[in-house]
């Protein structure tokens, strides 16, 4: 299965790009995080402290246990800070 993975704010900066297409067999967000963290040191650093990371699955806020079946887009970002 292929997913679009998006990053915002300092996660985008640490990883070095705003989005990427990922081939994955991950069943949950947590499994996807493990796969991404194993890719390189930048992903690992950005996703090291998950308490500082929020997740959206297909543009809805979700948690680490959210299933990925049928999902097209997963986004990682810091807590929102409004305007």
């Amino acid at each position, binding site marked *: 299965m292929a997913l679009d993975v998006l990053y915002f704010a300092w996660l985008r900066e640490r990883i070095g790009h705003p989005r990427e297409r990922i081939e994955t067999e991950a069943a949950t967000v947590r499994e996807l995080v493990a796969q991404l963290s194993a890719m390189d040191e930048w992903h690992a650093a950005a996703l090291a402290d998950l308490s500082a990371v929020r997740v959206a699955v297909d*543009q809805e806020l979700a948690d680490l246990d959210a299933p990925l079946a049928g999902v097209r887009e997963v986004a990682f970002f810091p807590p*929102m800070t409004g305007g």
Partner: protein
Amino acid sequence: MSARVQSAPFDLAAELAGFGQGSGAVVTFTGLVRDEGGRLVALEIEHYPGMTEKALQAYGEEAARRFGLDGWRILHRHGRLAAGEPIMMVATAARHRAAAFEAAEYLMDWLKSRAPFWKREIGPDGPGAWVDARAEDEDALSRWQG
């Protein structure tokens, strides 16, 4: 009954044209970039195109139901906003003032801590760090729960 995200500046007067007709009470909130005594030249605001618009629309509709609004508008900018520029506005219209005030505060508390926006300050020497979420914004939101 609309939410919008844009990079261009906006004019409060133009946004409010015809707003609240037939209603008794209109409340607006406008947030402006403070210069923090010269420490801040601009604010850079990032959003999540697609998700942000949907989230604003859904939350405006939630506020309309909860407070029985006659009308509401949310407008939020993204990109680089210079000190003194408007960042965002919320407008609510209701029959009585209490509902209009409460709905505007409810929307603001949500926008500050749950809407998909991230900001960082740009000083005289360039971009600083991304702004951390504030505990007091989280506290402000919690008063609407339960």
